[in-house]
């Protein structure tokens, strides 16, 4: 291992060492504030270290790791989202009874799993990352031991995730049989020699897609989403919607572009079908939801549907659009779940839409943040979501994917309908909810989120330039 190798994985090391330190600290002294502060600091330094190592990229550590602009960007996104989720968890986890410090250990292990996915160049690392991530997530989802719903969601996720992992493994094995390599870059040359993808490989890719589709909650592998989102603690739902999906998306994009899946007719059709189905299913089922967490779950299904359009663009520009979309979507989603977690108390999870009636009149500030997040999810201008949607539509049209672009547009209108329903509830005058006061960390987080949403909506040029400069495969 050379010194550059070592330097390049420092961001990962920080995230790997942090939970060990926390474990040791807990065994000596249980103090919630110290653990929380240490977690925030570690994530901050992890985030900062990503920028320091840009000059060393691209660099690959054979055979597992690849550290290029793409993976560094995803590391940055993952750490930043994990940081926001940590900040939001402070109040929420604090009010739980029993051992609470362990939450942060699991948060770190799952973040580590996610980071592995971002740098994976090999099936082994892919599987390692996905398992680290999923196993940590079971615990996080079921963290509220006293709540039946939480346990139920955890078990559901455990069972379904294990099945999907089995498919994933099967897919990997099949692809290995065909090409005799598990390295993504190795596949590139193997496929280039063949010219055409062999049927067994396509079958293997299908299995792989099934496993990954489960993690991304794409239709028809989406059944778990609403229950898990609803049962999990609100910050954890935010985490699943962002960090976990983002990391899996990163590895999917890398793999898909390496094997040039968009050139294959049948893969193209299947992905288009999944995209369109996900959009429509997500949005149509969201319309009638009375529970805000379920609504956001369905909305996330639709959003992943929009996002996989870019797989079919088959260009670096498309990947850049995906990265921007993910950044915007993460900030927005964490904003929405952040409001939910900040307004939830031990006694009452603020999850029914009716709980938010008249929020604006009592808590104008938090209602505005919520509105901003929902408008951004709907893709209304001035918010980050608008530029993100524009970017995807733009690249989609450039690649001539008119059917997908049109169904995305139809779905934007459908989506708007249910987001507006929530916004209307916030501003209705009927009943004034009784809600807890916000903590300082909560206020700061929401301020960061709403400023980022506006900044990316009004002046996205700098981020787009950054992405265009560094992100490519």
């Amino acid at each position: 291992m050379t010194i550059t190798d070592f330097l390049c994985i420092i961001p990962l090391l920080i995230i790997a060492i942090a939970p060990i330190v926390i474990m040791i600290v807990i065994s000596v002294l249980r103090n919630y504030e110290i653990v929380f502060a240490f977690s925030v600091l570690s994530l901050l330094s992890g985030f900062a270290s990503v920028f320091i190592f840009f000059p060393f990229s691209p660099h690959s550590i054979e055979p597992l790791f690849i550290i290029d602009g793409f993976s560094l960007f995803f590391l940055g996104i993952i750490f930043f989202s994990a940081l926001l989720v940590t900040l939001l968890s402070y109040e929420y986890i604090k009010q739980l009874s029993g051992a609470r410090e362990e939450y942060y250990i699991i948060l770190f292990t799952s973040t580590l799993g996610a980071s592995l996915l971002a740098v994976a160049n090999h099936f082994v690392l892919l599987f390692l990352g996905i398992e680290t991530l999923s196993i940590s997530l079971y615990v996080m989802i079921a963290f509220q031991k006293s709540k039946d719903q939480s346990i139920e969601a955890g078990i559901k996720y455990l069972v379904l995730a294990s099945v999907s992992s089995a498919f994933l493994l099967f897919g990997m094995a099949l692809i290995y049989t065909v090409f005799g390599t598990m390295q993504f870059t190795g596949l590139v040359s193997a496929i280039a020699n063949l010219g055409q993808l062999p049927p067994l490989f396509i079958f293997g890719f299908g299995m792989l897609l099934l496993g990954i589709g489960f993690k991304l909650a794409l239709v028809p592998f989406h059944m778990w989403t609403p229950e898990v989102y609803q049962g999990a603690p609100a910050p954890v739902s935010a985490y699943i919607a962002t960090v976990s999906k983002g990391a899996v998306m990163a590895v999917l994009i890398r793999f898909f572009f390496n094997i040039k899946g968009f050139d294959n007719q049948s893969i193209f059709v299947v992905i288009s079908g999944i995209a369109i189905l996900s959009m429509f299913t997500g949005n149509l089922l969201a319309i009638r939801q009375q529970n805000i967490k379920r609504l956001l779950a369905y909305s996330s299904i639709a959003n992943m549907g929009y996002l996989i359009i870019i797989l079919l663009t088959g260009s670096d520009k498309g990947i850049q659009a995906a990265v921007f979309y993910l950044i915007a979507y993460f900030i927005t989603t964490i904003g929405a779940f952040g409001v939910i977690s900040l307004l939830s108390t031990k006694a009452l999870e603020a999850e029914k839409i009716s709980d938010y009636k008249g929020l604006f009149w009592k808590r104008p500030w938090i209602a505005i943040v919520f509105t901003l997040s929902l408008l951004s999810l709907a893709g209304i201008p001035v918010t980050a979501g608008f530029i993100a949607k524009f970017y995807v539509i733009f690249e989609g049209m450039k690649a001539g994917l008119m059917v997908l672009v049109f169904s995305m547009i139809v779905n934007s209108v459908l989506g708007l309908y249910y987001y507006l329903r929530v916004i209307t509830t916030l501003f209705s005058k009927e009943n004034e909810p009784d809600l807890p006061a916000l903590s300082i960390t909560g206020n700061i987080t929401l301020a960061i989120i709403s400023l980022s949403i506006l900044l990316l909506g009004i002046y996205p040029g700098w981020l787009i330039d950054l992405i265009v400069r560094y992100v490519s495969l």
Partner: protein
Amino acid sequence: MILVYLIGILLTGAFLAWLAGSRSPVWSRIIAIVAIGLDLILILPFIFQSVSTGSKWIVDYKVDWIPAFGISFHLALDGLSLLLLLLTFFLGLLAVIISWKEINDKAGFFHFNLLLILAGIVGVFLSLDLFLFYFFWELMLVPMYFLIGIWGHENRIKASYKFFLYTQASGLLMFVSILAIYFIHGNSTGSYTFDYLQLLGTVMSPATAFLIMIGFLAAFLVKLPVVPFHNWLPDAHTEAPTAGSLILAALLLKTGAYGLLRFVVPLFPSASATFAPIGMLLGVTGILYGAKLAFAQTDLKRLVAYTSVSHMGFVVLGVFSFNELSYQGVVMQMIAHGISTGALFIMAGQLSERIHTRDLNQMGGLWEKAPVMGSIGLIFSMASLGLPGLGNFIAELLILIGAFGANVLMACLASLGLIAATIYSLRILQKVFFGEKNHDWKINDLSLREKIVSASLVIVIVGLGLFPKTVFNIAKPALLKTLDNQKEINMLNSKPDKGETASETISFFQKAK
């Protein structure tokens, strides 16, 4: 740079008004007035410049916004946008003044939304970058939704939904068209840009051009609105608070008309010529159907809302007549309708503040109680039916003359609309101010504040009727520019018919041999 200030002042004002609102509503009202007033003062000097600059842009400002996509922050002012800006700021001021008593709940947030809508409208009237245009087009939407949804009347939720979904859905179609024209232009010339001036001469096959134009039309015709797509309008107008109705009717509808003049006709000269017969038919349908529905209403605000549908029919008719006369009429109609319908909505607001109903059957005989209000109502009903001497008369007359040159049948049908307008306008007067007293209302006549508002509107509408030339002079260069392309198309189409050109063609062929 001054154009950026116009929008900047409104945005800053919006935030200040919101902050001030938590201390006292009066402060947020004052801030709103100062912000709009400042803008009005800033653009007044351009009135004198506009005539001398001719066909060029009076002010032009351009900086890069998102260079990766070829999006720039490009604002420019010409006679057409200048007139609409004057209208915007004037009515914006009135909107603040008329809600002085009506809005007491969350006044800070109200004025925030109001100023944000105005900023969006100003942006729409000034943008010369299609992406920026769409950005502002959507920016108007959310605050208007709040205005209706929070401060509106009983059925405000449904109305605000309808408004948002109609506009957003049609806007997205326009967005796809914007992207399509961007890619077509980029692929053929190699320069990918959203800049209006560069996209102007984009070469497209007729079928493509027509399809892309439909996307633009969708947005503008829904906003205007034109008859099959007018469903959102009566609800939104009726349920909005007075200031909201005023802005909707007087300004938001005009953004649709402006879009037709600024974008549809210049960008798609031949496609819009192909569409012209359908466009004119839609216009006439709007005129007659709107008038018929207006006549059938019992809710005063709803009635006035339907008259808007009818009046906007004239705008569509004029736009697709493609001649200078009708275009002058269209611009006049945009302004005069803004003033007269705005005034009628203000009157409806004043009435419902006093008697707490908008039901025409409950009213009657109010002239005795409120003669000043009655005479104001009389003037604007007359304006609405097109009485000579008031702005609307000039506008509708010019549109009809212009349309007569383009399509005799349509012009004849449209002129029936004037009779219908007479009927519904007189019905307003009959039901509200004359006729039998249904209730023994005890109401006050207009207060000084309301008198000032009404008087200023009367002055403008009479001024438009007596000195229309001022408006014509300001608008002329911009309109001629719009028509330029159209003339070429017409000439191309009509060439074979004319003897002279035919002989030229023949001689050309002989030479070629």
